[in-house]
Each structure stands twice: as C-alpha cells, then as structure tokens.
C-alpha cells in the first residue's frame, strides 16, 4: 500500500481518486490523500508532478474529470472557488499576485470575510454597520501586520514591496480570512533566507494557534524541517506518504527526483 495510507480520523481535507488530464497528459492521476486537522502537511514532488494542478482542483479553479474533494466532511467537488473558501479552505498562488494601485493594508483588507460593506445595498441602507465593521477589520489588519512584523509597510503601494515581503503579505492576508486549512503553493520560492526563516516561524506560530496547513515546497530543507507528514506526488499520483525521515530515505522518492519517475 503506497498511497496516503496513514490513518486519519479527523481529516480537514480529503482528496479521493482525483483525476485531471490536459489533452493526453494526465496531470492528476487518481490521486488520493488526506490532511489531518492540526498538521502541517507537506506536498512535494519533482517539477511538473502536478502539485499546482492538484491545488487548482481542490480549490475549484479546475473541474476534476473524476474523483472527489471533501472539506470538513462536505463534498465540495465542482464548487466555485468562493464556495470552497466559504467552507474554510483558502489558498495562495505560486506566483505572487500584485494588486495594482492598492496599498498593502488595502490589499490586506480584501481578505476579511463576511464584510457587510461588500453588499451594495448595505452601503446605502446602513452605512453605520459598514463603518463599524470596516474599523474593526482595519484594526485587525494592523494587528496581523504587526504580528508579522511588517506593519511599517501598511501604507506602501502593494506593488512596491519586495517579492519576499509580498509572500508575507499574502500569508497574512490569507490568515485574515480565518481559514481552517490553508494551502500554500511554494511560499518561499525566490525568498531570501532571512525572510524564509521568518515565514517558517509564522507558519509554525499560526499552526500552533490551530490553522492546518498543506504546503507545496521545492526547498527540501524548508519542508522537511516544517512539515510532518509529507505527501510525495509523482506524475500526478501519490507515490508515498510519511515522516520527513521516512520520505527522505525512500528509494522510490529518490528515483522520482533523480530519474524523473522513470
């Protein structure tokens, strides 16, 4: 039994027999695994193994050809991304997303959920409610920015900060949405070691406060240090799952990385 075989009693995310092909290429090939509540689960695999595709399938950006995705016991297969988010699952993207023409705190504020001011009619009918929630959300943004030690960036244009700071802002913003499970796609790719360490500390801290993480990462040292268990993906299917140590010493994993899965 090679697939995600560890026993999971309290899975916050369950992926079952998921399939997706692009033309003739099976980018996701009957993938099955689960993410246990409270863990930092790593998702690794060689380039092109289908990790990002899997994220897109889980979050509703792609529609699977077959299989199911469950979040908190609810089948979310085929739902719109915003509906999946409503079930407590938030994601970030591999390439940082820039918000043209926004300040950092403005871009952060987009992350808050259930804002009464997002309803056009409420804006006109009860501006008082909007003002109240806006002040509260802004205070929360300032708090989170302070927790991440980037409060000095609050009023900077969101496009003027470094790539690493952008990754921090993305993580901070995702946390504003108060997810139960957060999917991070290569959070430290292209980030300098100091900021990478900072990101690692933050992820640990947030995990300690109860957020479950599923993270894709290329930086082996980073992921081995942070995540347990680790799911290994190769050519669209789950090769194995285990502790960092177990995975590192698994011949199939070494083969997949060295031989491109041959």
């Amino acid at each position: 039994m090679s697939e995600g075989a560890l026993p999971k009693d309290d899975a916050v995310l369950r992926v079952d027999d998921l399939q997706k092909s692009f033309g003739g290429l099976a980018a996701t090939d009957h993938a099955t695994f689960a993410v246990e509540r409270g863990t930092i689960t790593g998702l690794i695999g060689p380039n092109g193994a289908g990790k990002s595709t899997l994220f897109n399938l889980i979050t509703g950006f792609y529609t699977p050809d077959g299989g199911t995705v469950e979040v908190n016991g609810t089948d979310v297969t085929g739902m719109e991304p915003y509906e999946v988010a409503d079930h407590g699952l938030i994601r970030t993207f591999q390439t940082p997303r820039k918000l043209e023409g926004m300040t950092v705190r403005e871009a952060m504020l987009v992350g808050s959920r259930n804002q009464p001011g997002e309803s056009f009619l409420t804006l006109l009918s009860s501006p008082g409610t909007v003002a109240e929630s806006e002040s509260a959300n802004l205070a929360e943004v300032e708090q989170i920015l302070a927790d991440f030690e980037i409060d000095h960036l609050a009023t900077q244009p969101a496009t003027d900060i470094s790539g690493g700071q952008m990754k921090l802002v993305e993580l901070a913003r995702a946390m504003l949405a108060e997810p139960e499970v957060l999917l991070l796609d290569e959070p430290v790719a292209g980030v300098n070691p100091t900021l990478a360490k900072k990101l690692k500390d933050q992820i640990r801290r947030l995990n300690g406060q109860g957020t479950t993480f599923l993270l894709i990462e290329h930086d082996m040292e980073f992921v081995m240090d942070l995540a347990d268990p680790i799911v290994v993906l190769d050519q669209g299917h789950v090769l194995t799952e285990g502790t960092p140590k177990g995975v590192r010493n698994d011949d199939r994993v070494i083969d997949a990385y060295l031989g491109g899965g041959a």
Partner: protein
Amino acid sequence: MSLFDGPRGALSELTRPEGWVLGVSVAFLLFLLVAMLTGALGPTYFLFLVGLAGMYALLSFGLNAQWGFTGLINFSVAAFFGIGAYGTALMTASGSPIAGGLNPLVGLVVALVVALALALLIGIPTLRLRADYLAIASLGLAEVVRLIVLNERWLTNGSAGLRGIPGFFHGWPVLSTFPEAMPGLRLEVIPGSPVTLKTAFWQASLNVLLVLAFAGVTYFVLRRAHRSPWGRVLRTIRSDEDLARALGKDTYSFKMQSFVLGSLIMALAGVFYAHLNLYVGPGDLDPITTFYAWVAVILGGSGSNRGALFGGVVIVTIREGTRFLNDVALPIDPAPLRLLLIGVVIVAVMRYRPQGILPPQRELIWPSAVDGGGTPETPDSGVRERKGGGDNE
C-alpha cells in the same frame, strides 16, 4: 480633507494636476460668463451646454463604474444610452407608435427596466468568461440595438425618429408650467448689450436642474460605493480576478453588479437626453457616443469619479467648441477637426500622463475608518500619485 477645513486647507492639499484642473475650470467658467454677458453666448444655449456636459458626465460615470472600477470592457455605451432615450421617448412622445403620452416618470422607469434586462441579457453569458468576451459581445450588441431601432418601424418609427417628446417635468405640479409662468427678464450688465431671459431660458434651467439631480445622485452613490469594501473587491477583480476568487469573493456576482449599475447610469443619460432634445432618432445610437465616453474616462483617469466628470466636460467643450470655428471661416470642416483634436488630446495624455488627468487618489477604505481615526501617517492622498509613473514632482 473636506472643504469645511476652510478653503486654504483644502487648496493646499490639492496635487498639482488637481490645482491645474481647478484653475483651468475657473478660468473657463469666467470666460463663459464674460461671453454670456457680452451677448456672444446666449444664456439659453449656455444652459443647453451645461445639460450636455451633465449628460456626458453621466455616460462617463456609467462607463467608469464598469471599466474604471472593475475592468469590464463595454463597447455598447451608445446602445444603453439609446435604450434610455428610446425607452422614455416611446412612453411619452406624442409621435410614439406604441404608447405615448404617458408621464415622463413612467418613461424613466421603463427605460431603466429595459436597460436592466439588456444588461442581464449580455452579462449572464459573458461575465463568467474571460474579459474579452464581453468586449466582443457588447460590440455586436450595440449594432444589433441600432439596427432594430432603425428597421422595426412598428416599434420605433424607424429612421423618422420620435417627435413630440415632452419636457421631463411635463405633468408635474408647478414645474410643468414654471417656464411659461416666469416673466421675461431683461438684464443689461454691459450697457448696449442687453440679455433677455424668456420662456426657453426657464425651460433650459429646469433641464439643468434635472441633470444636476441625476448626476448629483449618481456621483454621491458612486463615491460611496467606490471607497468601500464593495469597491475594493471590484478593484481586486480589475487587477487579478483569480486572487479575488481565491479569497472567497463571488466575482461573477460582483462583475454583474458593476455592469448593471454602469448600464443603468448610461440609460439615465439617455432619458435625460430625450427630454432635453425633445426628439430622438437612430442617429443617437451611433457608435461615436461610445467613443466619446471611453475618451472621457481614459482622459479623466480610469477609476476616478471626478476624472469621469472632468472628462465629460472636456468632451462637450471640444464637441461644441469646434462649432464656433465655423464662424472663424476655417478652410476645413469642423467635424473631422473635432476628431483630430480628440485624437491629439488622447495621444498626449497617454504619452505624458497614462493614468489620466485626475486618477483615483484615495485608498478604497471606508472614509470614516481611516479619516476619523486621525492616524497622522494616513496617506489620504498621493498614494497612487507616487506610483503613477508619469510625472513625479
């Protein structure tokens, strides 16, 4: 930041382009005032121009709510404008082949309902798709609406157009008879060139009142809606729709709201136009209106309501100002000259100030949350000015 801080405080907070626009506007108004007092510009015609400016401002507001806020590319501004004009004309005009003679308020409601239906008709199939689908579909829609108006005579009177449209206040108490009831006024500010204000002047004043009401309410609503969580989601969609989706926003619904809102405002401009001009014809659906609205929004600064207002006024100035060139006996026709002038203006703006003359300045955060707190470092203005590229002072 409000005007109540006293004029000096407000003035010193203006960015250079803002001060520049303010100065030019004041100079321009003075110029018009002098022209009026000397009799070179008839006061009634002046009010007609103000009405037109208000109308273009409405069209720009509408397009700004779609393109400027959300990045929706709508090439059927003229169609929604025409739907507004024809909607009310068909209900109220004595020459209407289907209804006619109804109160203009009925016309207003019908026009808005038809525009809503049309916006949904084109929005539902395209807004789930990539941005370019709306652009292409709206281009087609504009032509379809124009051809229907031109060819379905039983409905629209075809190329003859609709005559006998009443003023908007027709049938209202007091206001409907106000122009006739007012006495003729004779002013002689400059000796030897008297100015007489007659019924037509009072009629035109009512029209200005109407467009000020339409544009004022629209501006108020848009301003409130833009600096809010709602406006913030729209801007997120404009720069990265997938990010908005990942953060749990139902982007389809937001795009639909923005599209419908903009379309209704365009139809409102059409309603006003019908009761200003008292005649509508298929020529009023020509694509040039769409072109003018786009120029106004880009010139003013996409996303900025003030910019849209400014752009609308510039368009009317160029459109109507070139008419006077007839008097100067230029060797060329003013119509192509007008387009040439607009082309030059657009190229100059794109070259030296790609973000437009009055780009949005403030963060899209509910004003009381940032202003009220009084945080000293609050960058209430100038945030976008810095990143704007163009000219850093």
